[in-house]
């Protein structure tokens, strides 16, 4: 990576940061600081705007660089991974989006607390939402650090550390100044940039092979050194039965976890009606689906044009496959075209990270202020505006994420994204589905289902090979590994559902018929929705 690349990429980074800061200032110019405004952007976004924002919130750098890198290195198994991210949206569309829009106000806990005793339920759902957000956030921060170091060639620890601090500071500014309105516009801009960049590269790859997908696959397979094995599953997730069960576990977590991600749920509150929420999900499925289809072309394109050896040589996980492909498609390392395309890809990846972290920070500040602080503050304590608390919470979460990001800087945190999905699927999804669909669900069932999914998921990860007992662990020196799988979803998701059922049937209080009727009527008709 020469100096020209760096300069141009830095200019584009700075342009994006300037534009997003401009957006933040513009939308906060005459804000009135209500909770409605801060958490939900006034609920006035159109379905198309929200659809783009959802796509911008969801497609992380792990998708853009990680999945195409996986395909470039392991062929089909990268595609296998991306399918889960898309199919998950059917759960969101069918079971969650409209109903949550109709019965909630700002957070997941709103939907559950409407039927139950509010305090314990809010504390439980708030805790699990913040846990999911922090796990996801740390993965993004560490990813940002190593990504910028990779793309800009600055491999020094200081460059990485400053990137983590810079990303953290920017996301706190976006969220605390501009709230949901600024976050949404940043996500829309990012989604447009990401789709534009991906479409351009895909067209270039297909043009290179004269539109012959078959030829692309054949060249990729030949160059990979694996032959036809490159086009079938098994290079990464095959082998031992542990590895296979691990992938099944990850696949379940991806499909069921998306509907429990707090930053995705909070996006449905930014549109006026349930019908608009549905239409925004349809938009986002179109965008996300076509994006993942294009990453397949990019991944195989990188394998065919750059070659797995060059990709692996630059970054063992394959994260630089797309930037290298861009360089190659533009005409090579010393050409103007290559330099420009490379810089664009680097800037898009950076924009992607900023938009995703802003969304997560906003959602977790809502969980802290709207759920946890509201339930835990002393009744006689000083009254503070909820939005002020949320702003402070955003800064606190930013500091926490920066701290954890710096600590985890040199660790292998790739498992954190899968873990965040697993916790969301184990702790958030069961309580949400039970509240929306089960007549007899009780407060005890709700609390048990949250903790019954959250605690096993976290405990199993601590006992798994990602923490100890293998050379790639966080702590390779010690061995307290008792659970073989890296992703706890296969066990913890059923446990979350089981705990909710058990808590409900052992509950001393009878289920509240009237509250259930109210939830059901409101969820399906939108009566009384805010």
């Amino acid at each position, binding site marked *: 990576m020469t100096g020209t690349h760096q300069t141009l990429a830095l200019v584009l980074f700075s342009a994006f940061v300037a534009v997003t800061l401009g957006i933040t200032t513009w939308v906060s110019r005459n804000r009135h600081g209500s909770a409605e405004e801060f958490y939900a952007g006034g*609920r006035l976004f159109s379905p198309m705007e929200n659809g783009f924002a959802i796509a911008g919130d969801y497609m992380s750098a792990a998708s853009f660089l990680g999945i195409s890198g996986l395909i470039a290195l392991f062929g089909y198994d990268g595609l296998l991974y991306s399918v889960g991210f898309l199919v998950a*949206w059917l759960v969101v*569309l069918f079971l969650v989006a409209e109903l949550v829009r109709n019965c909630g106000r700002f957070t997941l806990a709103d939907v559950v607390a409407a039927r139950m005793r509010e305090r314990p339920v809010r504390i439980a759902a708030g805790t699990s939402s913040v846990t999911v957000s922090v796990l996801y956030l740390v993965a993004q921060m560490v990813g940002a650090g190593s990504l910028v170091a990779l793309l800009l060639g600055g491999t020094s620890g200081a460059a990485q550390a400053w990137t983590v601090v810079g990303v953290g500071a920017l996301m706190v500014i976006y969220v605390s100044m501009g709230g949901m309105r600024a976050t949404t516009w940043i996500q829309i801009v990012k989604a447009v940039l990401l789709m534009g960049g991906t479409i351009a590269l895909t067209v270039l790859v297909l043009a290179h092979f004269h539109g012959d997908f078959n030829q692309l696959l054949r060249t990729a397979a030949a160059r990979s050194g694996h032959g036809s094995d490159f086009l079938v599953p098994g290079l990464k*997730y095959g082998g031992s039965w542990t590895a296979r069960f691990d992938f099944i576990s990850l696949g379940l977590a991806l499909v069921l976890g998306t509907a429990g991600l707090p930053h995705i749920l909070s996006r449905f509150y930014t549109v006026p009606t349930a019908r608009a929420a549905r239409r925004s999900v349809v938009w986002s499925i179109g965008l996300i689906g076509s994006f*993942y289809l294009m990453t397949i072309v990019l991944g195989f394109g990188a394998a065919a044009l750059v070659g797995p050896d060059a990709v692996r040589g630059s970054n063992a996980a394959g994260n630089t496959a797309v930037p290298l492909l861009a360089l190659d498609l533009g005409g090579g390392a010393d050409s103007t075209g290559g330099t420009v395309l490379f810089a664009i890809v680097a800037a898009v990846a950076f924009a992607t990270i900023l938009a995703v972290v802003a969304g997560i920070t906003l959602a977790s500040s809502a969980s802290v202020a709207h759920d946890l602080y509201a339930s835990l503050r002393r009744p006689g304590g000083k009254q503070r505006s909820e939005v002020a608390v949320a702003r402070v919470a955003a800064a606190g979460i930013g500091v926490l994420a920066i701290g954890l990001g710096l600590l985890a800087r040199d660790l292998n945190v790739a498992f954190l994204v899968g873990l965040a999905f697993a916790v969301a699927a184990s702790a958030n999804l069961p309580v949400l589905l039970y509240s929306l669909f089960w007549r007899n669900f009780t407060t005890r069932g709700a609390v048990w289902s949250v903790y019954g999914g959250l605690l096993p998921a976290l405990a199993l990860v601590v006992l798994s090979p990602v923490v100890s007992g293998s050379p790639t662990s966080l702590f390779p020196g010690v061995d307290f590994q008792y659970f073989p799988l890296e992703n706890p979803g296969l066990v913890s998701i059923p446990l979350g559902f089981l705990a909710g059922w058990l808590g409900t049937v052992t509950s001393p209080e009878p289920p509240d018929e009237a509250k259930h009727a109210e939830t059901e009527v409101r969820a399906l008709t939108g009566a*009384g929705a805010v």
Partner: protein
Amino acid sequence: MEKHDGRETAQPRTGDRGGAGDPWYDALASGWGELDGTGAPAPAVPAQSVPRERSAAGVYLEVQRSAAFQEVRGRYRRFVVPAVAIFFAWYVAYVVAATSAPDLMARQVAGSVNVAMVAGLGQFASTFLLTWLYARHARLRRDRPALELRWDTQEMTRGIADSTRMNGSARPHGAGRVRGSEGGQW
């Protein structure tokens, strides 16, 4: 907007609705301590100011038992339950086959395209298809009766104690801003 936000703030913050406090209108659930627009602290509204001949809970139970609501719920469930079963089974089958039946997945279909590739792209195709079917079903079969139920329910809860906020938000926020086909009806 401002007016609406102000009304939302003006809610009873104390649990004067007894143990059966309705969480939707509960102080905790709403923007507690909000000092927006109006800037005035929320006044306490005595709950017993309106006679409770017919409670909000009663209204919802009545609506839930009505034939019109049962029809809407039935239409939703008759689409969603089989659809969820189909895509979930198809996805699990795909993941299990990919991890445990490599020979099946490696079978050639045409050129370099094998069963694995067809199945993977098939997941994309089925997701797009189900999305389109669901949106179409909801638009044609569910939106209109659901909207009628919504207005009827809000009409019935109007004037009932504790429903200040419900009346305040009877019209969705979007009503003030007409956008394409989104406006008017919703």
